[in-house]
């Protein structure tokens, strides 16, 4: 195999760097166009409600089932560790803090990217490949306002709510395992939780995380759909990119946000 000259490799590296910057610029302009400016296509509310149903309500099943199981596993593992130190009464506090600060926002965002994000990308990509977006433009309706904006807002609104639901059912799942199965005293489970969870430090920070993830995941999903190559292969690659980019962005941002919120700087 022919060896690529060093200069060529440097050129390719520079090229890919420029491509990344260009995509970032394009996606930022895209977001601004969606969020700013007039909405020329009648009432926004019915479009938003329809998308809240598609993006939020239809994601409820996976969020609730995952939340229960994760809460149950957390309680089980927490109990097994804490029981060695005779501190199994603190399992409620552990489950609640883990879910509120970390697993609630992060796992919800990852599940949302897989369930709703991929569907958004595929739907918008398919509209592009069947010329529905072009057709809207030529009817004089801006697809950024009519198609993209309701989906984006639906994601922004529904993900924090889904995250809250995930956390609540996770805590219930934990109670089922810890209290009903492993015999932790019910008063300790709930009482320790109530004493240790702070509204601002834990609940609010979790909500902030979830809002940030909502923006990032939904933005990636709608942009990948809008920007994809309008072929079957292009749509499939864009859908994969949505899940991969969104998951990596969530995990990376989670570390940064955790460091800012809970790091002792």
């Amino acid at each position: 195999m022919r060896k690529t000259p060093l200069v060529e490799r440097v050129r390719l590296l520079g090229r890919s760097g420029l491509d990344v910057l260009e995509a970032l610029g394009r996606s930022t302009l895209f977001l601004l166009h969606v969020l700013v400016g007039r909405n020329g296509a009648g009432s926004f509310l019915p479009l938003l409600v329809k998308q809240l149903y598609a993006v939020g309500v239809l994601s409820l099943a996976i969020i609730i089932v995952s939340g229960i199981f994760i809460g149950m596993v957390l309680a089980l593992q927490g109990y097994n560790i804490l029981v060695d130190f005779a501190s199994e009464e603190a399992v409620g506090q552990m489950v609640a803090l883990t879910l509120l600060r970390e697993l609630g926002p992060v796992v919800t965002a990852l599940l949302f990217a897989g369930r709703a994000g991929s569907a958004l990308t595929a739907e918008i990509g398919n509209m592009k490949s069947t010329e529905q977006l072009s057709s809207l433009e030529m009817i004089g309706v801006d697809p950024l306002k009519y198609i993209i904006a309701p989906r984006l807002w639906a994601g922004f609104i529904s993900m924090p709510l889904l995250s809250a639901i995930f956390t609540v059912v996770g805590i219930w799942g934990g109670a089922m395992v810890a209290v009903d199965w492993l015999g932790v005293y019910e008063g300790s489970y709930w009482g320790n939780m109530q004493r240790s969870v702070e509204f601002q430090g834990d609940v609010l920070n979790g909500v902030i995380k979830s809002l940030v993830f909502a923006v990032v995941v939904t933005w990636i999903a709608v942009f990948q759909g809008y920007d994809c190559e309008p072929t079957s292969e292009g749509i499939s690659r864009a859908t994969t990119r949505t899940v991969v980019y969104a998951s990596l962005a969530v995990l990376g941002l989670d570390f940064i946000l955790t460091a800012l919120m809970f790091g002792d700087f």
Partner: protein
Amino acid sequence: MSSDNAYAVELKGVTFKRGTRTIFDKVDLAFPRGKVTGIMGPSGCGKTTLLRLIGAQLRPASGAVIVNGQNLPDLSRNELFDMRKQMGVLFQSGALFTDLDVFENVAFPLRVHTSLPEEMIRDIVLMKLQAVGLRGAIELMPDELSGGMKRRVALARAIALDPQILMYDEPFVGQDPIALGVLVRLIRLLNDALGLTSIVVSHDLAETASIADYLYVVGDTQVLGHGTPAELMESDNPRIRQFMQGIADGPVPFHFPAADYRRDLLGDA
């Protein structure tokens, strides 16, 4: 202003590039008001790109695209969306909204751009669908329609707001003879009845020549020739003659450029 009135759409010195590839190099085209003008040329020569330039979905690298006296590249995004209300496009796939039924597809432009009462919207939709012969199909979903019916519904939607300019992107591709006959008749009929300016992009020679008042033949980044169908049939230009008469080999070669055939088969021996 007189030229504005005579021509609904004019392209002056338009250059368009995709990456480094030049699709059009300083082309001039003018589309007379009230006429059916055909744009013909081999597949992949940029005919659809030309429609997208007129619809301002693409911006030229240089040159002017003038629609009803306004240069589209100078308009803001919002002004463009307003300008597009004067245009209708029939896309190759029909591009119907798959989550809306036939009635709602045709009613869509009326709902977003007018505040007409529901009864009036219903009457207009029924009239537009009657014009394309599909009034009986109002409750069907797009996936229940044949290819020809989809295009007719899309045509009804394109004329819902009574545009001044109607563009057709390859309207005859993949149609059975009956659907083809219906479309050919409809394009001419709508043009004359509604006083439209119609632009038909196609490589189907017989159908386009049968309804067009004027034809442009494009290819190789240039306008190869223009004139009435009869004038182009008689053209001395070998490239136009090859296209108009459907000759397989000529200035546009049958073979994609390749190495010597004998050497490819037998090797260097």
